[in-house]
């Protein structure tokens, strides 16, 4: 039986609206915290579609992974501002508290964690976002021992949630600067092996190139292909 045939179950929500309540941003990332009307609580790993609507009816929508714990009264999204990004650029440059957005979610029943299986997660850049939700969830329900996270970023400053990931015990591999005693490099096989030990499932989230690298590394660490779930994004997030 392959992993893809495995039974999955997850909540699904329809279109609703979300009011931007809190936000913060640096020159590249914007963190949005929204109050969602008639919210259906998500599972860690699920995503929402956010839709922008111009006066004459033109719309643009993109999918974003949820960063918040399901028990958080607000829905948290972390958006990376992409060059020429129609939606991410608007959210980064123009959005402000009080704005109301169309939202649809939660969506996705595959890249989810119920908090009851030992897992290993590898995220690159904003690919760490679903794992932040999983870590927050694990902490609340006391399941920290079931989740191990490897977060990969260029530098501590540009890796989303870097401080929170380190505080939660994630292994952080920076590729362009040293971190404490670790010389800048992608994660090595011997760094991944202790994280993989005992995990029944692996989650990979990041760019297409990152996902390809991470799945290969997991394979070398002995994780069967059928146990790996992948969420990858190109320009569309």
């Amino acid at each position: 039986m392959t992993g893809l045939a495995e039974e999955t179950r997850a909540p699904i929500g329809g279109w609703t609206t979300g009011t931007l309540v809190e936000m913060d941003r640096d020159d590249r990332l914007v963190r949005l915290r929204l109050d969602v009307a008639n919210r259906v609580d998500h599972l860690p790993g699920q995503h929402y579609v956010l839709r922008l609507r111009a006066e004459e009816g033109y719309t643009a929508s993109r999918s974003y992974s949820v960063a918040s714990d399901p028990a958080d009264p607000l829905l948290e999204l972390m958006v990376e501002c992409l060059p020429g990004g129609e939606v991410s650029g608007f959210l980064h440059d123009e959005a402000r508290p009080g704005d109301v957005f169309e939202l649809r979610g939660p969506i996705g029943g595959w890249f989810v964690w119920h908090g009851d299986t030992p897992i290993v997660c590898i995220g690159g850049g904003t690919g760490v976002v679903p794992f932040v939700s999983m870590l927050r969830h694990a902490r609340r329900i006391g399941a920290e021992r079931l989740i191990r996270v490897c977060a990969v970023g260029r530098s501590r400053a540009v890796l989303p949630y870097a401080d929170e990931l380190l505080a939660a015990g994630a292994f952080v591999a920076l590729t362009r600067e040293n971190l404490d005693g670790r010389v800048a490099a992608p994660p090595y096989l011997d760094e991944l092996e202790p994280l993989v030990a005992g995990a029944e499932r692996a989650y990979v989230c990041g760019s297409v190139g990152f996902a390809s690298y991470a799945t290969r590394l997991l394979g070398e660490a002995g994780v069967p292909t059928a146990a790996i779930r992948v969420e990858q994004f190109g320009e569309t997030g």
Partner: protein
Amino acid sequence: MIPAATIPAATIPAAPPRRYGGPVPITRGFTGRPRRGRPGRVPPGQYDTGADWPTLTAEVTPHLVPDEWTMTVDGLVDNPYTWTWRDVHALPGSTYFGDIHCVTTWSKLDVTFGGVSVDTLLDIAHPRPGAAFVMAHSTTGYTTNLPLDDLRGDKAWIVWEYDGRPLPVEHGGPVRLLVPHLYFWKSAKWITRLELMESDRPGFWEQNGYHDRGDPWLEQRYQGDP
């Protein structure tokens, strides 16, 4: 008649917004990027990705060896049939030129795929009268369900060429299903089997909240869409 290209975008009627009780909020300050391409060419909620071709995959990309690959049509057919790589290449070739639409909101215009029409395979396997739905199976275990009518009538292909070159592995190479009039998750990568069925049953994304048919012009993205 006015050529479509001369109609200003603002006069194209917008799709009615979906209902969810309250008024649809206009996003304060949002005008959007300049509209590209011919108005009406891209389905609602989609944008023209230009030269890019993003990928969407839920699993580890497999590396198929063409000589070990086979294509089977079975289930509710009179003549269940399996073709080898060499066999499908010996069938009359067929080309699709047009657009593709991914549920993640990109559309890619004017692409060319080469392979064989699904009609050619169905003519050999000969569906029984009761066959109404198809489950497409990939070598990876990925599945997607489609109405049989969406695979017939020169609307669907088994393809191994993109723009005259071998289909890249990240886009389903060496061989994938192509059903360009539906969202692209229906065009199963690494296709190996079409199973004809009497009644519908959900495939991989369909079990995970996505629409059973997936018509981009009707925005049938998720379960519950019209």
